[in-house]
């Protein structure tokens, strides 16, 4: 009956169901014809097709990066389906026209879209495989001048905004996966908050990969004009398949003078089974540009899913006095691999950045923090403060920290703290000896460990994230 710290079977993945729905897919593989086909299906303006083709040509010249600490078999990019959409009327005027099966799917995921059941004060854009299904509270937001819609729709209704900003933060040839995304991205969310507007509600996109052989390549673009504020949330799940699915998204944020963007992610893609079979490859490029003076971009992420996570939400601090923040909890269990962190690029004067990263590794997983703090020659009095804490559960998990620091201005101040701890048998025993069960003790310790990050999540999400972590860790300590 001894309660040693060891890995037991995991709680089954709750969102692993498949929705049976007729879909329209295009042939497997990737070439210029496929790209033209995707663009045509979406009835895109000419500049968009040009953008895609340029990206594709760049991508062909690039090689897959191998500098991270994640390992996976070679991906056959010709064996992926790059577009899949549920069959339904070309343009949906209201929710009644959306296939009830799709609404049901999102309801099952805890994201009710119908008028009566909507989440109070959270506007949701629901994306199923390659297309956006519905966006709630659109009219209410429009009254404030806030544009919140799928990027496909934005290309039709606001092409000038998309043209101006798309690729301005993450250029098409930025990296291998970003180039691929730029060539084939299917849908994603678009947000524009006009001058002086504080967005009256949380905006949220919920991504669902349903089709087993489809890659998901979404593209999100958020622009906060002068003196505006927006808080945006993103959630993701996928069914359980034995094979690996590729998810290569690009997110671009732009904050103009005095604007603030808060971007929160709770990522719960299917992580594969305990032997590492199946699961999502999550290769994502997220970058925010603090273009204006006094602007601020804050990333908060809770990464619990995916077989492999490879992402570094970054801030480019161009505007003087601009602020970048990165708060992250990355949890890996079983055979999961995560290589995640951030880049803070200080260009303007008095720019400040904060990095709080918490990695939790259980099972046989591997969890790496990789971060870059770069202070440019003109970044007078720039400041950075970084904390990277790792926690190990059991004896077979691994944690690494790779902080890179480049300072080219002598007035800058950069601080870095790092720690690695282990949920030890003794800590566990201490809590148990006070009457707290082993499971509750682990929850308590994990919540404590993640507190600095959860504090930055919107309320509902913080509770959700806490529960999610407990669920993920159920059975890791017994």
């Amino acid at each position: 009956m001894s309660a040693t710290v060891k890995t037991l079977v995991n709680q089954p993945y709750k969102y692993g169901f498949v929705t049976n729905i007729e879909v329209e897919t295009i042939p497997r593989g990737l070439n210029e014809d496929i790209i033209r086909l995707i663009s045509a299906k979406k009835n895109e303006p000419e500049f968009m097709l040009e953008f895609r083709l340029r990206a594709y040509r760049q991508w062909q010249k690039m090689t897959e990066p191998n500098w991270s600490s994640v390992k996976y078999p070679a991906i056959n990019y010709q064996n992926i389906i790059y577009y899949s959409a549920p069959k339904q009327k070309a343009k949906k005027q209201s929710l009644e026209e959306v296939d009830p099966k799709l609404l049901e799917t999102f309801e099952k995921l805890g994201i009710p879209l119908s008028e009566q059941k909507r989440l109070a004060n959270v506007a949701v854009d629901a994306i199923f495989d390659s297309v956006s299904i519905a966006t709630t509270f659109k009219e209410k937001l429009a009254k404030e001048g806030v544009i919140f819609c799928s990027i496909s729709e934005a290309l039709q209704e606001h092409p000038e905004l998309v043209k101006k900003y798309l690729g301005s933060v993450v250029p098409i040839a930025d990296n291998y996966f970003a180039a691929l995304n730029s060539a084939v991205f299917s849908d994603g969310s678009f947000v524009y908050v006009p001058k002086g507007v504080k967005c009256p509600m949380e905006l949220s996109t919920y991504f669902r990969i349903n089709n087993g052989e489809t890659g998901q390549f979404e593209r999100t673009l958020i622009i906060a004009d002068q003196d505006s504020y927006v808080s945006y949330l993103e959630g993701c799940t996928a069914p359980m398949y034995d094979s690996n699915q590729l998810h290569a998204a690009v997110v671009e944020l732009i904050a103009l003078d005095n604007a603030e963007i808060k971007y929160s992610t709770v990522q719960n893609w299917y992580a594969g089974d305990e032997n590492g079979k199946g699961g999502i490859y999550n290769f994502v490029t997220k970058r925010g540009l603090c273009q204006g003076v006094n602007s601020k971009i804050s990333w908060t992420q809770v990464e619990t899913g995916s077989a492999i996570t490879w992402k570094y939400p970054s801030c480019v601090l161009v505007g003087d006095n601009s602020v970048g923040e990165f708060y992250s909890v990355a949890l890996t269990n079983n055979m999961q691999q995560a290589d995640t962190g951030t880049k803070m690029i200080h260009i303007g004067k008095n720019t400040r950045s904060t990095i709080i990263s918490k990695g939790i590794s259980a099972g046989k997983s591997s969890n790496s923090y990789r971060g870059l703090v770069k202070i440019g020659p003109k970044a007078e009095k720039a400041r950075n403060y970084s904390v990277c804490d790792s926690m190990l559960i059991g004896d077979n998990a691994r944690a690494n920290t790779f902080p890179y620091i480049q300072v080219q201005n002598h007035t800058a101040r950069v601080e870095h703290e790092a720690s690695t701890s282990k949920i030890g048998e003794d800590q566990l025993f201490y809590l148990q000896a006070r009457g707290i069960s082993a499971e509750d003790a682990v929850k308590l310790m994990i919540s404590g460990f993640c507190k600095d990050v959860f504090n930055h999540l919107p309320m509902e999400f913080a509770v959700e994230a806490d529960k999610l972590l407990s669920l993920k860790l159920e059975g890791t300590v017994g």
Partner: protein
Amino acid sequence: MALGDGANTTKAPLQHQKIASKTQSTSRQNMIVDNSEVILSVRNLTAEVDGKPILKGVNLQVRSGEIHAIMGPNGSGKSTFAKILAGHPAYQVTGGEVIFQGQNLLEMEPEERATAGVFLAFQYPLEIPGVSNLDFLRVAYNSRRQAQGLEELDAFDFDELVEQKLELVKMDPAFLNRSVNEGFSGGEKKRNEILQMALLEPKLAILDETDSGLDIDALKIVANGVNQLASPYNATILITHYQRLLNYIEPDFVHVMANGKIISSGGKDLAKQLEERGYDWLLEEAATEVGV
């Protein structure tokens, strides 16, 4: 030494009776009545860690209202004994039995033992980063309440309760908002242990080297806390290397543990003798008695 096991087994309980009958006249001593409830009964307990025997046949009986001190040289097994009673997973019990209020303690999980009323004050209390002391105390307190079939106390009522208990250990309320034991001084950690004990009101409190690392003021605070919590309805086991603590907490029984066994038991005078003469004479005596 193996030969000695049998001799000790029968001897220890006899000594208890003898001492109980010539009870001294301190106020709390009068709490003990011969027929008071047996809280803990340990018989021939043997245990090992990583295959290495540590306990080699421990016998002990503790009645309600009693304070027992277990003394002994380093490595004698006294801390191991304390941890085994609380259910530490690193130790394997290989024989004997432990009955706590009629229940087989050895079959219970550590948290079950705790909620049943066993409390171990740790020699080295652990730090739990990010978990506020207040949250930790409330979760622990409510676990005990739940086990007793009582309703959980809400945050407001709990705050009130904990404020009262703080007095006992003279702790600043600011401690409640700090992470559990994180950055606490040695004395603060020990006082935090006594605060937990005051909240959980255990039936059996085991204090493992609670005096180690304390300056005289902290020692007095801790001892005062323990004395105030001792009642005719509970019992205390003090594990200590030094006699110093016993100047402030007067034990009813003093046991000397050496090489995994209790080799001698007596009243508080035994502790004084140990202070003066050390442990060697007892070890020799024990060796002679069993004819080694």
